[in-house]
Every structure is written in C-alpha cells, then in structure tokens.
C-alpha cells in the first residue's frame, strides 16, 4: 500500500508542478488512520496531507461534477469501482470528460472501521496486510484479524476492474475473485411478500433522513433533487408516516435503476446501517434477468436497457410473470 501511495503522491506532485492540472482530487489524512477524507489539493504544499490507505473507501467520482466546471484540468484518483461511476457521469453529461485527468489506482478492498471495532479492537494506529491476514496495531497491542471479515460491505463482493481507457494506471495484480453479489438479494427474493415487507419496514424505519445516501450517490446528481423540490409533490414523502418514509428510498432506487453502478456508497455512508445497496442490486439483478447482463458504467457511451427499445425486448406481461429470456 505504501508504495502505491508513494507513486500516487509523485504523480500528483508532478501534475501540479508542471501545471498540467489545476487540482488533484484524492484523500486527505484525518485525525486517525481510519478517517481519511476526500480532498482537493491545489498546491504541492497541500499534498503533505495526502494519504492513500486501507480506509480510503470513498468514491471520488461525484466530486468531478463541480471540479470539471472549474478552470484548468482536474486530476483524480479512481479505484476500479469508482471508474464505473465516472463513466456513468460522463455518459450522462454530468462530468466534462476533457477537463479530467484520471489516474486509476490499485485497490484490494477497503476496510470498515466499524467492523474492526466490533471485533473489540479500538484506538487503531496502523494496519498491516498479508494476504487474508490483517495485523491491526492499536494502543492495546496487536490483533490479527481475518481480512474478509473487516472489508466494507461494498468490497465483499466486488469484482470490478478498471474501465477507464487511455489513462495512466497505478496498480498491481489483483487476484481474481468468484463471488455472487446477488446472494443477499436471493435471500430476500426467497422470502414471502409479508416477510420481505417486514424486513424492509424494519430496515427503513431506522432512516433518519440525513440524506447521506443521496448526497454520496454518483447517480443522484440532479441539479435539483425532487426531494428538495416542494413543487414535485413528493418532497415531504420522507417524514410523513412510517409507510411514506419507505418511499424515499424506494423512489430513489427507481430513479437510479439502470444507472446505478453498484458502487455501494449508499450503504457505506448510512449512519443507521441500512443495507440500501440491496434495493439497487435487486434492480440490477432484474435488469440482468430481463434484458441480459448489463453493467452500468462499463463504458461512457451507448444505450441502456431501460431507456432503449429493441424488438427483442421482453413483453411486459412476461416480465411480470418472471419469464426472463
């Protein structure tokens, strides 16, 4: 990780020094090792706070909406999963591609500090990773944890690879993984409608409407969100009663259907630990089943299954009856 961080820092410095870019978007050291935050660096001097470690889970692509409007080019570090969001944003004309210099970076999964703390380790000072073994150094000493158990939920089933073409890449080999990202969705599908309703009701009633999921979501990039627009007639949907509360997340899932790249940021940032990504994954699974496999953000152009029509499209009645092709 250190060598990757060093390479990244070198590139950031070189790009800023040469004036090729006006700013670099990366991660900035926090108070602790586990709380780095997204940041924009405009001078070499500012780069002293630059960091890239096992806790840099944030997806930086959404920051490019604003950054690409500014004068001068913006360099950005994108992990494999982030490149899908980036492509999707370019495709939807939200990011001006020509103003962005992408540096694709290595990722072997990022850690969820809450999961480490849940294993009884606090005051974390450093982590050292050897394959599936993670040595967590803390004031209390050294604890060895199993890597898959402390990964961010979004990293648990990640199989994403870099999708940005013709850009520089800082990475090394990543082992191939064979995981089923729909396993959790399948569990929900196996439930009876009543069980499923109860599950979601219980999950969604935890929602405090902090809007973190929406604000972090790269697909939620509307100039004015319907939930912030009293004229839309649904702005108050969130705080009406328990049933209506659920509609916020369900409407949001519909709005990002076919565009969600499954970056998993919604669940990562949810302070109430609602597994919001499962709503989106259900849509992704259905789209795959009804229209053939489709991964949003794989490219930054082309048609999408939900907004295009072909003669071979499934008939609505067959779709309702679940008779996928």
């Amino acid at each position, binding site marked *: 990780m250190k060598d990757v961080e060093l390479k990244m820092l070198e590139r950031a410095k070189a790009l800023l020094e040469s004036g090729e870019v006006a700013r670099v978007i990366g991660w900035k050291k926090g108070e602790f090792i586990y709380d780095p935050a997204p940041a924009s660096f405009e001078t070499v001097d500012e780069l002293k706070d630059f960091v890239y470690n096992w806790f840099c889970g944030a997806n930086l692509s959404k920051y490019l909406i604003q950054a690409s409007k500014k004068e001068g080019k913006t360099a950005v570090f994108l992990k494999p999963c982030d490149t899908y969001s980036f492509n999707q944003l370019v495709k939807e004309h939200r990011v001006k591609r020509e103003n962005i210099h992408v540096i694709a970076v290595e990722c072997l999964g990022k850690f969820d500090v809450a999961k480490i703390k849940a294993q009884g380790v606090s005051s974390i000072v450093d982590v050292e990773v050897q394959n599936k073994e993670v040595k967590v150094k803390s004031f209390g000493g050294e604890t060895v944890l199993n890597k898959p158990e402390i990964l961010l939920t979004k990293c648990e089933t990640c199989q994403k690879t870099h999708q940005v073409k013709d850009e520089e890449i800082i990475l090394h080999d990543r082992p191939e993984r064979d995981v089923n990202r729909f396993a959790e969705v399948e569990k929900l599908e196996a439930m009876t409608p009543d069980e499923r309703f109860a599950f979601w009701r219980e999950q969604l009633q935890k929602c405090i409407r902090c809007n973190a999921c929406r604000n972090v979501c790269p697909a939620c990039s509307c100039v004015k969100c319907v939930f912030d627009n009293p004229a*839309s007639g649904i702005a108050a949907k969130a705080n009406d009663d328990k049933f209506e509360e659920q509609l916020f997340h369900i409407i949001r899932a519909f709005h990002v259907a076919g565009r969600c790249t499954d970056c998993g940021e919604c669940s990562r940032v949810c302070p109430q630990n609602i597994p919001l990504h499962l709503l989106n994954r259900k849509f992704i699974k259905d789209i795959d089943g009804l229209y053939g496999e489709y991964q949003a953000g794989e490219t930054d152009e082309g048609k*999408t299954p939900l907004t*295009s029509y072909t003669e071979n499209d499934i008939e609505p009645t067959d779709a309702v009856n679940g008779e996928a092709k």
Partner: protein
Amino acid sequence: MQRIGVFICWCGSNIAATVDVKKVAETIKNEPGVVYSENYQYMCSENGQQLIKQAIKEHNLTGIVVGACSPRMHEATFRKAAEEAGLNPYMVEIANIREHCSWIHKDMDEATEKAVILVRTAIAKVKLNAPLQAGESPVIKRALVIGGGIAGIQAALDIADAGFEVDIVEKNATIGGRMAQLDKTFPTLDCSACILTPKMVDCAQHEKIDILSYSEVEEVKGFVGNFNVKIRRKARYVDETKCTGCKICMEKCPSKKGLNTFNMGLNPRPAIHIPFAQAIPNVAVIDPEQCIKLKTGKCGICQKFCGVGAIDYEQKDTFIDREYGAIVVATGFKPIALDNFNEYGYSDNKDVITSLELERLMNAAGPTDGVLLRPSDGKHPKVITFIQCVGSRDTSGCGKPYCSKICCMYTAKHAMLIREKYPDTEVHVFYIDVRTPGKNYDEFYRRAVEQYGVDYIKGMVGKVYNENGKLMVQGSNLIDNEQITIESDLVVLATAIEPEPSVRKVATLLTASIDTNNFLTESHAKLRPVESPTAGVYLAGVCQGPKDIPETVSQASACAAKVIGLLAKDKLKTNPCVAMADENMCNGCSQCANVCAYGAITYVEKEFRLGGGKTEVRRVASVNPAVCQGCGACTVTCPSGAMDLKGFSSKQIMSEVEAICKM
C-alpha cells in the same frame, strides 16, 4: 376563482341504463368549484352541444367536464363546442363513464358511485388545466407506401393520380405481391396477371411514382406531415439502371438449383434471376446464398455474358433518406407454416399441397405450364380432395382463431376450374361452414356445387396418410353422420393466412399498434377502418385483417383518399399537449432524449445565473413542440422532474389519483 361546469351524458341508454345520471349530476353540484351540473340524453347532439355552449356563456365557466363516452370518440366535438362558446378548447376534460363505467358494470349503485368518482377525478384535473394554443406544422407533399402488392399498387396509383409524389418500398425484387402468384380471381375468373400487370406497368410509368424494389424501411422519425424515413436499398448485385431484363444471365448461370420462391419452391431457378416474366422492375437479382461467385469468389459467368455490364458483385446495401407527409402500410400476408398440422401429412407427402401452391400448378407461367400435374410423379390427379380451414378458426392454439376469409371462395374456384378443365376428375371439399357473403359470391359457390358437381362434405379431416401410393383422407361426414376415407391423388390444404412477419418491424418503426394476431390495429373498427391510431399512418390490405382482392382494392383507395386529404393541406394543427423542460431543473443527462421515439429532444448550452454575479453554462434539454407527440415517455424517465407534459402534467395526474383515493 374557478367556475367549473359538469355535463353528464346518458348516451341514450348506453350510460343511463347502468348509471343513475341524474344522481351523478346532482351529487357533483356540491363539489368545490362546480357552479353548474346538468344531465342530458345525448350530449354530443346539436342540442347537447348547444346546452354546453349556453352554460359556458351564462355561467361564465372557466372549465368544463363532460361525463360521457371515451375521449377518443367525442373529445374533439366538445372541445370545438367550448371554443365556439369562447372557452379555450383545452379547458375541457372528459370523464369516460361509458367504456370505463357503464359498459363494464351491472350493478347501478356501484356504477353510479364509480361515475361520481370518475367525474370528480376529471374535475380535479380540469382545475389544473391551462389554456393551450395549437401550433402549426407544414405538410411534406409526398407519400410512402410500404409494400408493393395490389394494396400498395392501388394506393400509390390513386395518390399519384391526384398529383402527389409516391414512393413504393417493396422488400422483394419486384412489385406485384401475392396477387401476382394467383392464377384466376373469383368471382369472375379473370386471369390474375392480366388484371394486375397493367397496374404494375402503370406504376412503373407514372411520373409521380418511384418504385424502390428490394428495399426495406429501416428507420422512421418525425410525425404526421413530417416523417423522416431511412430506406435500405438491399444489394441486388445488378445495376438497376443498366439491366435490360434480357435474361441471358439466367440462361448462363451454372447455379440453377435454387428454389423458385415465386412458384412456391415447386421448381428450381438460377442464382441470378428475374422473379417472373412480368416483373417490375424487369431487372435481375442475385441470391447471395446461391451464387457461386459471391460464395466462393470463382465463377463470374453472368458478368462475362451481360452485354451492358450490369453485374456488380461488389454492390453493397445503400441507404437513402426521404421525407414524407403520410405513410400507407400494405405489407400483406403469407400462408401460415404447417408445422403444427402433421395430421395432414404436408411435410411427408409431396402430393399434399397448399392452395397457393395449387395456384402455381394451375398457372400457365407456373412450373407445369398450367397443366395440372401432381408434384410426386408428374401424373394427372384423378381424385382431388380439398381441406378447408387448415389453421383457420382454430382455437386449439395450433393455428389462428380467426377466419381467413378468402379460402371458401378460392377453394370453390379451384374446384370449379379443375372440373371445367379436367371433367374426368373427382373433386371433394371438406368444410366446416361455407362462408360466401359478397356480391355474386354465393352464386359462384352454388355454381361449383350445382353446375360443376363438386362434392362438398361438411366435416373435418382427422388425418391424411399414405397407403400404397394413395393419399387416404380420413374424415367425418357430419350430414350423413359417418366416418369416411377418400382415396385421393392430390390433397389441397386451404391454409390460413397471417400477416407478413415483417409487419412487426414496420409497426415498431411507426409506433403503430398490432393485435395478438399481428394484424395492424385500425383507429376505429367501424368509423376509422383505414387509419392507424398513429396519425398520418394508414392501413391497406391483409396487414389490417383478412380480406380478398376487391376489399383490398377498396381499402387501398380509401387509404389514398385519406392520404390525398392530408397532403392537400398546407399546414396541420399540432397538438399543444407536448412536453416541456424546466431548464432550471434539467441535468442534461440525456435520458429523455434516449427514450424519445420521435427525436423531439435536443440539447442546448445555456448560461444560468447562480447569484452573486456568478453564472454557469449548463447543458439542458429543449423540446421541439412540432415534433413532440405528447406520449409522456420523457416525463416519467426524467429523474429530477424537469420534464413535464402540457395538459397532462405530473401535478394533474397526481391530483387525479388523489381524487380517486380520497373516497
């Protein structure tokens, strides 16, 4: 303050028998905003309209709701009445209390309650209506006819004779269609080619008609009066402008074993060929699947012998873009595949043939030069059995549920012609019913039975099997109540017809609707039988439903009259209920443009003020109101709600939903 008037129609007893119309009108009087509520026997009548006009003036109404039949029927009528009384026509809403209520309910209390809800819903909507002004769009004075059979030919000739340019797009190498394959035509027994080919020649020679044979419609954009159509001109590997139709290539071509599709595959034909003697255009075409040169690169004999250098193996598909004001769909039919009807032994016995194959066997230009010889051994069949309704009126799911309409008549024709030409032949016909309505039709059938002694047997055939070289037709004779087996030399299946499969693609391109049997749907089964629900698209021939030649020709001419009426106008009123983007909310994400079937949405860069003297340039959607058809696909796709539809705004629809849920 809104002043809403409500008008409840009885539609004679259509509504009033199931809905207590007086109670509805009375209940609605208490609705907020309603200042007038009345019921009347026929609201669409002159007197009914007068009542509406008077109420608008007397009560100074700002909007009206008519509780009546479907808006498809009379929305235009009531809008016009409102306009005449000085009210903006788009301040009229229809509550459909007939199709949506009285016709589907039996219980009066229930139906009345529902009618009240439907009227309240329309009131909720009309309160949010805004006056709209219809715009104008120009009309391109050129028509497109898709399909060059008798329907397309007739429509094209009539339109062209009125002085408008017409293009016929025909997917085959020649126009003529199915009619060109027929031998004689009922009920007068004229030779099909003799009456069709002069019309084909008329098309070719008409200065206003452009025949685009071996071509297909690839893309359709635009709307009534302004269609933009991309046409694929398939590579025929022969230069149409050079080929003289001398046929030397056909003679010299060494690959002679292709199936002659014009003769229903009954005899071979060369890889390079002219489909039939009177083909229009009289130009050869190469079947790339069969041509040795195109498959292996070696041969080139036709090129060597072609005196005018018309052969071009390098030819590629080309595309042309044309603009049209109106489109006639005349894509025709084909007999169904008989895969589901093994009981008739069609695939196992060469001498079990379809009626269309018989047409070719009896035709002077057919594979047997018009001498009726059976396919297996070339002998003259002495006993011929016809089986009707093969795949028609079939509710088992194997065939088609509808009557193919033409089979009774052509079977009578076949039977009669055979008895006339070969009096020593015994002819049997198995039938469910004989359906011969039409001028001189039943007389025609009676002649077959009475004058020509054709043996008509009421009953279905169970199976056809081969025994010692004879075709055994086993069926029941319902009149005599007995099982019979007829030893036959030839069995002819009156195969059901279905729309040409390419109609699905055409329908998709035109956003014209088709029914479960792939027939194109007309706008109104009785009153608008040649119009498709898509404005500017008209239907002729079997693509709309089974019909014979006289009916097809009538429908084609009716289409032409509609097209001429449209093209005669210089401008059309456009529908003001179109989409509009709120630029302040638009993200420029292009999703609306992706779903727009009409290409009505483009994007522009606009500068927006951000406050504090700052500005920002954003990409925002812009709707061309002349192109937009108001389908609303963009409004439901837009995640931010920037896209809305005038006259059907999200707010209006939500307030309708709320009015329904309020109960």
